[in-house]
């Protein structure tokens, strides 16, 4: 029997019982669309993460307190402005250093009021941390030295307080003290996400105003030091230099642990990508379980189908079908069921991802829906395999039927 004839026979048999075929396909269809959406969303997420790290800059190293983490509000106060200065002075592979200290404070302006993160920064942050000014100016060296009460707003803070109006020149109150807004940053959108939600003031001003009440405990401590390294191939060297300098300034003896952590963006990116990859696999695995359930559904229906068609099988054998022919016929039927389910599932999964992309974009988290080729290949491949595997037992049963008894079957 030629393979093409097997196909037409299979399709004829499946069309002969449309509702049942569709219901059976549904299991595989849902499974495949789940796997496809998980993988597509995963791919989109990975792309966003990559993009975010790219905007942060590849040659960046973060130094944070040992107990802190990147973006944490307040870490253990083990790092100081002095440490930043020491790194800038002593590390040869370093081209720029920007310490950041931050704290939460009440911000009032434009008739609105919110509790926001206040980041104390130095002028170097503009290029070290890669901040782009959308309107107005960034904090200058003068502002820093003079402890000026000036503020640059993250785009979301600006949006919340002033809406579409350019806030440059407006005054706001931070912890009850008056500040003048001198600029607004471009939306980062991606990144760690918190950059858009902060108010930036000179670090010196932060110590003398907003954080003055905490001054006893935190002195001139910082939560993070961003270090711009000369080139990407000197990241390792910079890491070692910074560690050596800080161990020295912190008087850490040989054998004692560091009280800080040096994170380089490339390795953080790698870690995050790894974690996301694992998460994706787990989710795809869960989605894959529904494929398995779909496979069981196919096996069930194929068994029913074999039982219903015992006379047909007997007749086919009587007129010359070999075991192999019957086996092939039923295997192709189940594979066709799962292949069709899989193909429609890919389409449905794609639609789901598209819809999610549109919804997320409207909610302010833009991501591009993408359907990686490996996702299609993987889910359709698995679907066909499941179809064949679940069709095998029913098909073998059909092929082994005795023609005489089958013909007599009522």
């Amino acid at each position, binding site marked *: 029997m030629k393979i093409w004839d097997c196909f037409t026979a299979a399709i004829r048999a499946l069309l002969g019982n449309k509702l049942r075929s569709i219901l059976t396909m549904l299991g595989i269809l849902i499974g495949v669309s789940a796997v496809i959406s998980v993988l597509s969303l995963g791919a989109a997420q990975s792309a966003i993460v990559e993009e975010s790290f790219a905007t942060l800059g590849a040659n960046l190293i973060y130094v944070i307190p040992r107990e802190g983490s990147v973006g944490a509000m307040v870490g253990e106060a083990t790092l100081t402005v002095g440490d930043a200065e020491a790194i800038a002075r002593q590390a040869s592979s370093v081209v720029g250093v920007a310490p950041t200290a931050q704290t939460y404070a009440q911000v009032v302006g434009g008739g609105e009021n919110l509790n926001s993160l206040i980041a104390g920064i130095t002028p170097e942050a503009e290029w070290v941390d890669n901040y782009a000014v959308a309107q107005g100016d960034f904090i200058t060296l003068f502002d820093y030295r003079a402890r000026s009460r000036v503020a640059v707003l993250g785009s979301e803070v600006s949006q919340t307080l002033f809406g579409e109006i350019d806030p440059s020149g407006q005054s706001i109150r931070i912890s009850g003290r008056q500040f003048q807004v001198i600029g607004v940053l471009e939306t980062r959108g991606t990144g760690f996400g918190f950059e858009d939600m902060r108010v930036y003031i000179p670090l010196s001003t932060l110590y003398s105003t907003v954080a003055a009440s905490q001054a006893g405990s935190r002195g001139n401590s910082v939560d993070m030091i961003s270090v711009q390294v000369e080139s990407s191939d000197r990241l390792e060297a910079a890491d070692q230099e910074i560690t050596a300098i800080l161990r020295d300034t912190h008087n850490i003896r040989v054998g004692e642990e560091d009280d800080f952590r040096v994170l380089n963006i490339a390795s953080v990116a790698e870690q995050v990508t790894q974690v996301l990859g694992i998460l994706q696999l787990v989710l795809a695995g869960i989605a894959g379980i529904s494929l398995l359930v779909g496979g069981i559904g196919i096996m069930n229906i194929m068994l029913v189908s074999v039982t219903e068609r015992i006379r047909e099988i007997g007749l*086919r054998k009587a007129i010359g*079908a070999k075991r192999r022919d019957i086996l092939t016929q039923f295997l192709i039927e189940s594979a066709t069921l799962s292949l069709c389910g899989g193909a429609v599932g890919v389409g449905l999964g794609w639609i789901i991802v598209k819809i999610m992309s549109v919804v997320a974009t409207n909610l302010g988290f833009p991501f591009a829906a993408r359907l990686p080729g490996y996702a299609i290949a993987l889910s359709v491949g698995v679907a066909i395999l499941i179809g064949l595997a679940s069709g095998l037992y029913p098909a073998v049963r059909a092929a082994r039927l005795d023609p005489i008894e089958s013909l007599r079957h009522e």
Partner: protein
Amino acid sequence: MLELENITKVYKAGQTEVPALRGITCRIESGEMVSIIGPSGSGKSTLMNIIGCLDKPTSGWYRLDGTEVSELNDNQLAEIRNKKIGFVFQSFNLLSRTTALANVELPLIYNGAGDRRQRALQVLDSVGLGHRVTHRPSELAGGEQQRVAIARALVNNPSLILADEPTGNLDTKTSQEIMAIFTKLNEQGMTIILVTHEPDIAAYTQRTIKLRDGQIEGSTCLKSG
């Protein structure tokens, strides 16, 4: 030509052995039209299954067109059934969801024959159903369904047609029409074996083989008509 030599068939039911055929020897020439009759339990069905290559004898020899069939394996038997034997059943056994044409084409699918449609149309025409080829079995009368089955049996140009109670589900008039087709086919040279318990039907044949208790009664092939 078909030769059976001392064919026996024993079924095992648990510990006991039930002999269904006890040494059948007979010979059916090409172009003959023969009926096999006998009461139920006489071994008719068993003999038909062996002649139709659906079953193998426990002992004895069976030659079909000179081929020793009793020594073939399952796949070879399937090929013999496909090419040399045309089956016609009491309950027609058509695939219900497919058209008359597709039903007739079915045996051709299993030997990879080309030009299936043409051949199927031709045999359907020869049994007088050329005008109903796209009908499904449910849209056809019983006699028409049996004609489709006969066309299906003929489509591979077999050495013999083996019909098991072919008129059992039909009324008298339709039965006569179906028997007329068999008679005509026989006149054109086709070997036909009818298994029946109706003397009326057996009367259409040139020779009747009577079975009783797994043996040919009188142990010879009786000439009649």
